[in-house]
């Protein structure tokens, strides 16, 4: 009887030895497969705590879990419904893995499974103690609790501009906060103007707003992280507390210089870039203000080859101003008289800057001009022929 008992225990012991090996080899089974409300939690094997922090039904559907376990920092993981268990792994201090799989997400609950070693069991179900719950508990003693939020009126600032930094300090505790000291650090090249170092007492539940100007003087352009603002304060009982704001990101961009910048473009309209000598052809001139400021008076100056005339239109007009992003366009009709390559250069002058553009085209003699010499040569031949024909007629009976 005794020996039988020993045998049974021994057998169980052997089994117990074998099981972790099986688990380690990945032969997992479900430890938990059920629905939990937000702020409900389970404990697995008395040491792993899993709490539902948040659910989100807007695709991708997901649930956020807070996991704490022996010898490991608290961790929050977000599990997407469709990801499957393999992706969402949590490893214990000892190296055993458990896997999360979200099966369904509802308005304030989630159905999910946890798989892991087959001998592991859920050892506890519990409700998470929320802050409000805690407050209720703390109500008895009066404790101030300042919550500081820092906001910047603009997240991206140019050199030379000023950022308005506002602190919203809310006393979320049940006691007045006094001797409040504000410790704000700044970035190099910026200057804080009107930033208070200490604040008046803030009663429980009250909210204080404080702001100062952060003048960006010569900070290098770039992305800066503003360190959290530190608040040190005391309760009525004289206990010291502190709290921090989150850090903020500020982007500093190089100072934008406002200048007009003009571009000119000349387009000659012709088939295959060839113009017939003596024929009129249009040229379109366009001036674009590609800068960021309105230009002053704009003068256009043309440089035409000697044999090119303007037949119609004003080629050197003057414009009082051109707004940024705007353009003016005009066209003129020209005539080229000589064959060959031609370059038309156009300058646009404004303030003390100028830009130029040129257009090229070939001028060719017209068909008639080309054959003119041959036609000239042919005339006497034709006349002679006609004369010969006439003579032949005269002598043929």
């Amino acid at each position, binding site marked *: 009887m005794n020996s039988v008992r020993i045998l049974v225990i021994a057998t169980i012991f052997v089994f117990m030895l074998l099981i972790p090996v099986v688990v380690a080899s990945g032969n997992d089974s479900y430890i938990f497969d059920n629905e939990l409300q937000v702020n409900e939690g389970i404990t697995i094997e008395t040491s792993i705590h899993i709490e539902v922090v948040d659910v989100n039904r807007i695709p991708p559907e997901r649930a956020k879990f807070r996991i704490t376990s022996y010898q490991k920092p608290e961790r929050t993981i977000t599990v997407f419904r469709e990801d499957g268990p393999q992706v969402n792994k949590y490893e214990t201090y000892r190296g055993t893995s458990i896997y999360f799989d979200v099966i369904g997400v509802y308005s304030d609950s989630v159905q999910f499974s946890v798989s892991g070693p087959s001998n592991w069991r859920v050892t506890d179900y519990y409700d998470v103690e929320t802050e409000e719950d805690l407050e209720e508990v703390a109500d008895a003693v009066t404790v101030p609790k300042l919550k500081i939020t820092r906001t910047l009126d603009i997240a991206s600032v140019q050199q030379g501009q000023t950022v308005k930094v506002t602190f919203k300090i809310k006393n979320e505790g049940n006691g007045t906060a006094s001797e409040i000291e504000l410790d704000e650090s700044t970035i190099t090249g910026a200057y804080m103007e009107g930033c208070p170092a200490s604040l008046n007492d803030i009663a429980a539940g009250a909210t204080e707003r404080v702001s100062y100007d952060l003048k960006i003087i010569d900070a290098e352009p770039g992305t800066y992280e503003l360190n959290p603002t530190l608040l040190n304060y005391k309760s009525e009982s004289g206990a010291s507390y502190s709290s921090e704001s989150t850090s903020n990101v500020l982007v500093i961009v190089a100072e934008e210089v406002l200048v007009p910048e003009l571009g000119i473009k000349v387009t000659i309209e012709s088939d295959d870039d060839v113009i017939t000598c003596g024929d009129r052809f249009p040229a379109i001139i366009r001036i674009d203000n590609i800068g960021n400021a309105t230009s002053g008076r704009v003068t256009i100056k043309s440089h035409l080859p000697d044999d090119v005339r303007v037949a119609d239109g004003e080629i050197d007009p003057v414009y009082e101003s051109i707004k940024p992003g705007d353009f003016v366009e005009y066209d003129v009709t020209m005539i080229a008289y000589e064959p060959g390559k031609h370059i038309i250069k156009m300058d646009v002058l404004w303030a003390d800057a100028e830009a130029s553009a040129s257009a090229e085209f070939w001028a060719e003699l017209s068909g008639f001009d080309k054959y003119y010499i041959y036609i000239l040569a042919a005339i006497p031949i034709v006349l002679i022929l006609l*004369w*010969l024909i006439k*003579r*032949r*007629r*005269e*002598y*043929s*009976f």
Partner: protein
Amino acid sequence: MLNILILGLGQCGNRVLDAVNHEAFGSGGTFAKYYSRQKFPASVKTIAINTAINDLKGLTDTRAKDRFHVPHLHGVGANRTLGKKVFDDNKEQIMSEIDKRGSFELIFIVTSTAGGSGSSFAPLLVKELKKAYNAQIICIAVLPFREEGSIFLQNTAFCIRELVAESPNGILLVDNQYLKKYAGDIKSAYDKINTSVAMRVLFLIEALNSEMLMVTDLGDLKTVMNGGIGIGTMGYYEAGKDGTIKSAILGSFKPSGLLFPTNVYNEGARAMLIIKGDKKYLDLDLITKTVEELSTDVGQVFKGVLIKKGRPKVLSLFTLNSVPELERIYADAADAIRFEMDKREQSKKQLDGAFAHIDDLEPIY
């Protein structure tokens, strides 16, 4: 300026006329007519008249409007009787065609005496022209090759008689038979003869129309042509390198330069000499002396001197007192006519004899 008309009648006359037109273009050759102008030494009008349209078509240097076709299909086949009838039927058109060209002081009629059309038209034309114009009329009559047959001989005989009867100002003879020596074949002989005649005609016209050093004019021509029996011919000589003007003048009387076989020294009645050439060759004393010498043999000799570039060229034109060669032609012609008549009679008799066999018989069917 003289107004001259040259009429070419029949094939022969047409072709001589064509040669005149050709020569008038100068030395340009076949194509001269396409670019050049005729350089007649006077106002010259030409008309080629023929019954045979093909003869007219064959001309090359005569303007189409100067070719007048007398409608009678393909010539009159050497039948002068028919030719005369055709002329009478078309007289008005022919005369109005001539009339269109104005009035004339000198008219040349060029024809063969042997064919049908030209030889029959020529005498009738002389008659009509004399009625219509107060012009000197000179006939250039081309005699046939003797072996061309008896009809050509007969025609020649009657043609010349009729011509003389109509009394033009003169008849200048050109003898194909005599000039046969120019070339081996008939075609080139014709061309040569035609060119020779043409050159002489143009030379003569030039002389008559020019302001000459020593003048010959239409009056002189008339006088020369009036000499003898009014029948004559032309001679020509072109001086060689070192010949004198005398030898050139005498050369133009030599048989080699004549268009008709004759002995000028024996038979010449009156003559006209036209000397053309560079002044340096023209020794007037020598010319005068030579002409005087000639006059003792030839009778009156008119002379004209034309100053023109080139070696001396001499044209002689004369009338004859007697024409033995012509007599021979007439004798031959008479023989031929008689022979023809006999033959025709015999043939007729033979035919009558043949018909006699069936005299009193009727066909039986």
